[in-house]
């Protein structure tokens, strides 16, 4: 898997590239919009991470230029602007996802992976498993240690979300967006409450504890 990172801030570019490489991606970096466009036009990438404020050629123009050239590489926008209007504008230009700075690297990684999975048309399994936990997506049955677990719709959705990316951290923002389609800070941590409920049902009476908290980042489902 090969990724393009177009970001003018050297430090951000370095930690993003390093992190992505550690996650097993090959990463090319461009420090301005023109170089980024040149790379994107001449090489084939599985995904591109593009900052909006770039020297020489801004991110939106870069994406528009790519799409005009029939290059459909999935793009994640990085931006310091967080309004809905900016987000919508970014998505309308042809990007596939939008991440506001400052972002957590785990979230970026998760979004990159989700994007690649989505665009590569991965098979849709009807059954998900993690250790002794199994989920049937058709009958909506969840079984752990041979016993059935009753989950309410949001609990089911969250567990499915975690089980679809085992071992990968998902942030609270991602859960809010994915489960409730909500993109604001809801003051009280509704995600914590949902995780807590899910833990009571899925983890409390079993070992090992699968749903783990990565403090300050998010949650991860680990089978072992």
């Amino acid at each position: 898997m090969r990724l393009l990172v177009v970001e003018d801030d050297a430090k951000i570019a370095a930690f993003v590239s390093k992190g992505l490489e550690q996650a097993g991606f090959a990463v090319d970096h461009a420090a301005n919009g023109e170089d980024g466009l040149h790379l994107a036009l001449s090489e084939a990438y599985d995904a591109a991470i593009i900052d909006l404020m770039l020297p020489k050629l801004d991110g939106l123009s870069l994406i528009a230029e790519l799409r005009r050239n029939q290059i459909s590489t999935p793009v994640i926008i990085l931006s310091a602007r967080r309004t809905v209007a900016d987000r919508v504008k970014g998505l309308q230009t042809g990007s596939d996802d939008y991440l506001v700075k400052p972002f957590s690297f785990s979230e970026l990684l998760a979004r990159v992976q989700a994007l690649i999975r989505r665009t590569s048309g991965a098979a849709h399994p009807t059954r998900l498993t993690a250790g002794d936990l199994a989920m049937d997506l058709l009958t909506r049955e969840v079984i752990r240690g041979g016993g059935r677990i009753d989950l309410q719709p949001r609990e089911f959705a969250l567990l499915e979300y975690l089980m679809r990316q085992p071992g990968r951290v998902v942030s609270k923002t991602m859960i809010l967006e994915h489960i409730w389609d909500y993109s604001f800070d809801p003051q009280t941590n509704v995600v914590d409450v949902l995780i807590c409920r899910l833990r009571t049902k899925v983890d409390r009476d079993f070992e090992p504890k699968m749903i783990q908290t990565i403090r300050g980042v998010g949650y991860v489902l680990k089978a072992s």
Partner: protein
Amino acid sequence: MSLRPLDRLRKTIGFRLTLWYSAIFILSALAMVILAYFFLASSLRQKDHEMILSRLQEYQAQYRTGGIRAIRQELASEKYAGKPNYFFVRLASPANGTLFLNIPDQWADFDLKPLESGAIQEKAWIHLRAKDDENVLEITTAKLPDGSSLQVGKTTENREDLLETFRGVFASVTLIVIVLGVIGGQFLAVRALRPIRQLILTVRAIADTGKIAARMPVGQTRDELDELARLFNQMLEKIDALITGMKETLDNVAHDLRTPMTRLRGVAEMALQGEGPMETYREALADCLEESERVLRMMNTLMDISEAETGTMQLTLEPVNLPDLMDKVIDLYRYVAEEKHITLKTAYPRELHLAVDRDRLSQALGNLLDNALKYSPPGGNVELEASERPGQVIILVRDSGPGISPEDLPKIWDRLYRGDKSRSQRGMGLGLSLVKAIIGAHQGYVEASSLPDAGSVFAVYLPKQLQ
């Protein structure tokens, strides 16, 4: 260089206004004076002509009865009677030879030759110029039955004297008019431009000192310049509010960020000093992440509030069915309520349409619901209601919390304010400020009412159509 002040003067509106006013005033006054002069001159001439003609008819009649003698006699009797002899009388033979001539003695010397040389035309006016002054002899002619002609004339001397006097009067009047015109123009310009000069002074004061507390004095006349002054003051007030709002926001941000930043710093510093096990470092880093997350959330909320309050928040208005939106908000908090054993009750119609920013209103209602859940004791109730009034939609959020004391009630919308009893509760106290700001941006308003120990009611009033 010496031309510069003059140049600047020429460019001022005051100068141009004075110039235009004076020019128009003076020109119209002059036109009137000139018109009056010509009217006077022509009426005087007409009167002279009438006199000459009536005299001519008189002499004609006398000639018909007694020939030249009768005319001579008449002239002599006129002289005798002391009547001023003002008329030129000439009797010409059919061949235009002078048979009789009477010229008053005091008259200037006129060259009469053209009279004898020219052909005689009845009723035409002949003008003879005096040899040594400006006077003119006006003569008209009548044919007599025997073929000879009678000519009677009069100098314009009297008339000219009169007109001369008038010219003098007119000249002085004109002078006065010019002076009055310039003074009037100046006065008008000064008067009309006074509010503008005030405006300039005010603006300059603001530009020089940066103090926008200065205001234009507004008159009572309700004219255009008053309107301008009023609008200018309104603009200043708006800018003032904006700047104050921004200052407050900055102060708040600076103040509120200090605490988490201090914690963040402290945690990092402690971790760097110690030689503890790996786990300590991990904990410290996680703490740092959490604190930075808190800083970020606070910053976002403060930005939202100030954007909404200063009117720079971009609202994407779209028709929304309010009950659907409220269902979604409730769905978000359903588990939170369940965990606290709080019963969520709803009372709203299935259809209630209005134009709002879907995300922002969700956020505001979410905060109100969050607040209600936070302050209701376990086992309590939270009720959400929505109803419609003409042109208005009312949303009520009722909790069964401890209520808010009357002295705290007005302060709950202030940033970072939290009633004393809630110190143990989490939250940054920004939630209600954000609600108020978002609803305000939708041209609506919020109200809270509460009785101690009987819960609080938060009411949101939204217009159905934004202006």
